């Protein structure tokens, strides 16, 4: 993704170049323009841009002929979709029952305080997005933290501090 966040801290100001031929490949080639596959098309688009840019969603609306307001409804309903740019690193803390009983709530608070962001939000320098996820199914190694699809079993405050130290050094 090109562009930088502007100084006013409004993440919407980020400039994104939309590759419409890539969108065509996803929508038409991979999913045959089938509107039943809309959620998966949106997931594929999000994998490319790390969020759902408005212009990409508008294009999707035109191609599969689903009203924009309906796609917006879907994008705001499902927790994995983001309409705001995500950070370079996405840190997900599992808050499933087993992880909760082993202190994942405390870990979320700790990161939240240290990085100054609420769960679901991204730091203003776009380095880190903090998320919670309701169970990744690895309950035996609770508490679990996932950073960019890599699983960290039996995570604790020390693991997180290490990661955040390395992040701040970048």
């Amino acid at each position: 993704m090109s562009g930088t966040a502007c100084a006013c801290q409004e993440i919407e100001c980020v400039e994104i170049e939309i590759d419409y031929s890539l969108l065509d490949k996803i929508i038409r080639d991979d999913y045959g323009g089938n509107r039943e596959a809309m959620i998966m098309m949106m997931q594929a688009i999000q994998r490319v841009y790390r969020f759902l840019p408005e212009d990409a969603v508008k294009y999707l609306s035109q191609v599969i002929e689903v009203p924009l307001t309906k796609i917006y409804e879907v994008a705001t309903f499902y927790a994995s979709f983001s309409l705001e740019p995500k950070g370079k690193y996405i840190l997900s803390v599992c808050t499933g029952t087993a992880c909760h009983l082993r202190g994942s709530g405390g870990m979320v608070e700790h990161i939240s305080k240290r990085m100054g962001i609420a769960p679901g939000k991204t730091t203003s320098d776009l380095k880190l997005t903090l998320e919670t996820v309701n169970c990744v199914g690895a309950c035996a190694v609770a508490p679990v933290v996932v950073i960019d699809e890599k699983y960290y079993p039996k995570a604790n405050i020390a693991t997180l501090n290490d990661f955040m130290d390395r992040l701040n050094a970048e």
Partner: protein
Amino acid sequence: MKVLNIILNGKAVTAKMGQTILELAREHDVFIPTLCDSPALEAAAMCRLCTVQVIEGKWPKYVTACNFPLRRDAEVVTDSPEVRHGRKLIIELLMARCPTSPELQRLAVDYGCDLERFTPLNDDCVICGLCTRACEAVTGRTLSLAGRGVAIHVDTAFQKASTFCIGCGACVQICPVQKIKMEDVDGERRIILHGKIASRVKLPQCTSCGKYFGPVIDLKQVMERMGEHLIPPPNATVCPECSRRNLAIKLGKRYFEQYGVFEEEGQANAG
């Protein structure tokens, strides 16, 4: 067509196969309160206010009258203490969210609601979904129910003013708490939702009197959405008043011409 034997609040009546309890109740002047129901739209059963008890086998179960299809002989109880208690809670909870619905206020009195029980949420919406369903029915493509859970709210795409709205005002008409507003300002129709402009529709200006009237609707687009092939009436360029006046002049002229009474009065355009 099979006829069903239903005992409605103790009275023996008959119902058609598949008829909803609400329809049946209305046929027999039995009042069941509703909020999110509208005769123009398919039932959504979201508010749950119309919940009643139905006994089809052994045990009573709670169902919403607006969309429960009667398919067997059954007993229906619309006002048992348990049902009334549940409705009381619904009204208390919705009033805590949005206290200005006249219908809910009336019901609150009827059900003996304690309106101090729950801390207010200060919203201007009872999440009945009528506006979004109406918008979808007229292919307005403007309003939808965004978000999930307690964050659910009526919104436009990306919270921006919609360019698809046809300015029909169905949402304004159907809102039970009258919180959606329509304003015609400077040649533009605005739909105001949650205090923000949800859509802007350009209004044409009467070529006769200069007033702004009705929204400009691209009828070709509407036809395409409806999937119909209608012959559209020509788009109006004079307001309804001028249109009526022009027609009256035309007719009058034709009749009174023989008496030489009328003269040309400015431009006349058959609308």
